[in-house]
C-alpha cells in the first residue's frame, strides 16, 4: 500500500462510514439475528453492542495480521475459529463482570459467532487491508452497530415499559405497549425506523433534484 494513502483523512473516512453511511443495521441490514432478540431494554442492547464490538475489533485485528498466511481455500473456517475464540472470551468476561445481564442474554452471546456482520467485515475488509485500517474500520462498524442496537433498545424500552434504563418516565398513568417488548415488537420497531430513514432519504434526493433543476 502506498505511503500517501495512509493519510489521516482516509483513516477518518473508514471510521465514519461505519457509523452513518454504511451503518451495519440501518443501511446494510446485517447482523439482525442477535440484535432483535436482545434489544427489549436499553441496557441489554448496550451490553450486546459492546460485546459484538469487542469481538469485531479483536478478530479484525487478528485476521488482518494473518492475512498473508491464511490460504484462500480455508479462509472462512479460519475466520470462524478466530471469531469463536473472541466470542468465548467475551462470554466469560461478561459472566465474570455483569452476571445478571449475562443471564438475560443467555445463548445470544454465543450466537455472536454467527453474526453475519462480523464475518462479512473480515471477508470484505480486514482480509484486504493493513492492520491500522482494519482496526479503524472495525471500531467504526462496532460503534455503528452498538449505536443502532442502543437506539432500538431504548425505543422499545421507552414505549414498552415506559422507562429508560429502568427509570420510569411517564408516571403511573402510562399504559405500556406490551407488544413492543415481545418478539413482534422488534420487527415492527425496526421496520418503522427503516421506514422513517427511507422517507428522509427520498426527501433528500427529491430536494437535490429540485435544486439541480433550478440551477
Amino acid at each position, binding site marked *: 500500500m502506498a505511503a500517501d494513502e495512509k493519510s489521516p483523512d482516509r483513516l477518518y473516512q473508514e471510521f465514519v462510514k461505519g457509523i452513518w453511511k454504511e451503518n451495519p443495521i440501518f443501511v446494510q441490514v446485517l447482523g439482525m439475528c442477535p440484535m432483535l432478540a436482545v434489544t427489549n431494554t436499553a441496557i441489554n442492547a448496550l451490553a450486546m453492542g459492546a460485546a459484538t464490538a469487542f469481538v469485531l475489533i479483536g478478530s479484525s485485528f487478528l485476521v488482518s495480521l494473518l492475512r498473508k498466511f491464511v490460504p484462500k481455500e480455508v479462509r472462512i473456517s479460519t475466520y*470462524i475459529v478466530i471469531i469463536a475464540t473472541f466470542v468465548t472470551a467475551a462470554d466469560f468476561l461478561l459472566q465474570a463482570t455483569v452476571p445478571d445481564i449475562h443471564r438475560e442474554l443467555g445463548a445470544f452471546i454465543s450466537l455472536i459467532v454467527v453474526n453475519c456482520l462480523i464475518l462479512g467485515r473480515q471477508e470484505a475488509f480486514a482480509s484486504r487491508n493493513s492492520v491500522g485500517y482494519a482496526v479503524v474500520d472495525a471500531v467504526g462498524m462496532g460503534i455503528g452497530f452498538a449505536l443502532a442496537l442502543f437506539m432500538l433498545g431504548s425505543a422499545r424500552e421507552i414505549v414498552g415499559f415506559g422507562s429508560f434504563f429502568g427509570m420510569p418516565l411517564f408516571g403511573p398513568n402510562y399504559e405500556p405497549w406490551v407488544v413492543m417488548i415481545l418478539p413482534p415488537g422488534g420487527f415492527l420497531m425496526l421496520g418503522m425506523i427503516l421506514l422513517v430513514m427511507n422517507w428522509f432519504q427520498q426527501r433528500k434526493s427529491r430536494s437535490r433534484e429540485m435544486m439541480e433543476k433550478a440551477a
Partner: protein
Amino acid sequence: MMDLVWIFFGAALVNNFTLSYFLGLCPFFGVSSRLDVAVRLGLASTFVMLIASTGAWFLNSYVLVSAPYLRLISFIVVIASTVQFVEMVVKKASPALFQALGIFLPLITTNCAILGVALFQTNRGYGLAEGLVFAFGAGVGFTLALSLMAGMREEVELSDIPSVVRGTALNLLIAGVLSLAFMGFAGLFSGM
C-alpha cells in the same frame, strides 16, 4: 412420549425459531422472494440441523466433558463441515437448485438457527432423542416461516405500494405481523 410431542410443537410453533427467537433472519429476508427456493432452503437447513444436533450431543457427552470452554469452537467446526458436505451433495444432485440458492447455501454455516439448535439443546440438557426431535421441530418451524414469508412477498410484489415502504422496511413489518400471529400459538398448550 408426550414430552417429545411437546418439544416438537414447542420448537415448531410456540417458540418458532425465526419469529420468536429471531434466529435465521438472514436467509429469512434474503431467500424469501420465491416460494419454491424458500421451501428447499428450509429443507436443506432442517437436514443440517439434524446432523448438527447429533454432532452436538456426541461432542457434549464424550468430548467436551473435560474441556467445556471449547464448546462453541467445536460446534461451529461441526456445522461448517456439515454444510460443506451438503453443498457438495446439492451441487451433484441438483445443479439448478445449487444455482438458485447461490451464496445462501454456504451461508447456512452462519445461520444462527443451526448453532442455536445446538446451543439451546445443550443449555436445556436434552438427550439424543429429545435433541433430534427438537432439531426437527426447529427445522419445520423455520421452513414454515420461510415459506409463509415467501408466499406473502410474492403477493406483495404485484401490488401497488408506496415507494417509501418498499424493500426491507415492508418485509420487517410483514414479519412483525406474522410473528404476532404466531404468538397465538402460545395458548396452544396452556389448557393441557
